[in-house]
């Protein structure tokens, strides 16, 4: 098994669910799917190639949309499965039924980007404080942190 054959197989097997598939760098495969097909694609990758190790889930604020990238790795290549979700309706499906280890990353996404992960087994906040104001999501680009002026104790 090498990265090229994985790309070809994805291309031939689940063409209808995948919007884009390409080998962009050595051992890096980019797959773009619609968010409704995410679980199906991950299940396919798990059953067909044994992709069970989820490196992490990265969220990126693109302005209009949020991009969510699932990084799956094994000994052959890393598959970056990418979905887009609009800012007005930031819902993504939970992948915990396919990959149980994704729970912490999904909770982090909820905290930091305000994405709504549907069917998440454990929706409590992970990183942010309990008295963190609702509706503020630190890693969104429009959330700006005003650095307070530095006060050095002991006068000027």
């Amino acid at each position, binding site marked *: 098994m090498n990265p090229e054959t994985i790309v070809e197989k994805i291309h031939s097997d689940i063409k209808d669910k995948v919007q884009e598939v390409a080998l962009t760098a050595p051992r890096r495969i980019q797959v773009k799917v619609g968010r409704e097909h995410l679980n199906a694609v991950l299940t396919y990758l798990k059953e067909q190639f044994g992709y069970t190790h989820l490196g*992490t889930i990265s969220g990126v604020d693109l302005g209009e949309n949020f991009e969510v990238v699932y990084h799956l790795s094994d000994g052959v290549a890393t598959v970056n499965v990418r979905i887009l979700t609009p800012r007005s309706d930031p819902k993504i499906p939970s992948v915990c039924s396919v990959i149980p280890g994704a*729970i912490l*990353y999904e909770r982090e996404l909820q905290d930091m980007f305000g994405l709504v992960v549907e069917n998440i087994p454990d929706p409590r906040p992970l990183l942010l404080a309990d008295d963190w104001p609702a509706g503020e999501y630190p890693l969104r680009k429009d959330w700006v942190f005003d650095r307070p002026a530095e006060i050095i104790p002991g006068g000027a």
Partner: protein
Amino acid sequence: MEYKVALGPQHPALHEPISIRMTLDGEIIRDADLKLGYNHRGIEKLAESRTYIQNLYLTERICGICSFSHQTCYTQGVEKLMELVPARRGLYIRTLVCELERVHSHLLWLGVAGQEAGFESFFMYTWRDREVVMDILDWISGNRVHYSMNTFGGVRRDIDELQKKKILDSLGLLKSRTEYYLNLAASEPTFLGRLAGVGKLSKETAIALCAVGPTLRASGVPMDVRKDDPYAVYDEVPFEVCTADSCDVLGRAVVRVKELIQSYLIIEFLLKNLPEGPIKVKAPRKVKENEVYSRYEAPRGENVHYIKSNGSDKPERLKVRAPTLANYAATIAMLKNGFIADIPLIFAAIDPCICCAERLVQLDSARNGESRVLTFSQLRAMANQRYKNVNFKKKDIAWPF
């Protein structure tokens, strides 16, 4: 009777703040829950407002023990974004520092395992011998913790013949000491009794919960980024991936000790085959629009940086996944049905390095079992209130003798 105990965020076994909520039945843990965020510093947000060069030193400060891991992971990612081919000698030196860091981190872990098990002598001896490798790192990079060796396109400091000789001389000592510790850990009955059979994590659970590093390898899964996705010069270096199939804390210790011995071999190979030439090439300041998923085998496991560039001199997004976060889910599984006495060992066995953002304390009232959650500001107000009410008499404040 089941009762709930909060271990941490401040606890002698935890070197950094994290909270474990345990449901105990006598001495046995029935359920555990982790609460993170006491140490979140907002590095990912901060990185978006910094240039690539400034981020080099920011990523280095994600962790104190694996500072070089984070920096290298970031540097390699940015080098790929810049389409830069680093200098070969630079790559060799970079790999050398990687392995030296692994040696010092694993020796540190051995000591911590000894300390958590109450084996203070073991802790003192391993840390004494760790000074040898710390001195090497100090000697080649200039500093003990933050080596700052990486730059885009290579490394910042060269190695001369004298340093080479000194490292090779010290390796012999380290090798014999490591073998001694392996024998010791396997024959000391009290220590072995604490490690063996503790914190079982089956192969299937480890894979399903996406564990990484020695935790995963001790469950018999030979996953190592250095072999799977070779970076730097690992494709030229012969080494073995160390695994154990006992699935317990002892297995994790054995994996680490075996990795130490492999690391010594790698260091020896690198020093003997160090190519001549420049140590770095010139790097551009701006980076084209692209993205990269950089993987690195840190001493604690797979370290991941996802960098997205937007054409300017600052990254659009830097996502960092430290190995410890990946191991938390597995830790919960390991803690269940263990003894209270095993918590520090199981928790230490993933070699936790906590970098996470909230301040909160849960107080369980001893009399009525009610639990209260206090935010940091409330806690501070309580402390101030207490000391306002305390009527210090003059004789209490004065030196009593």
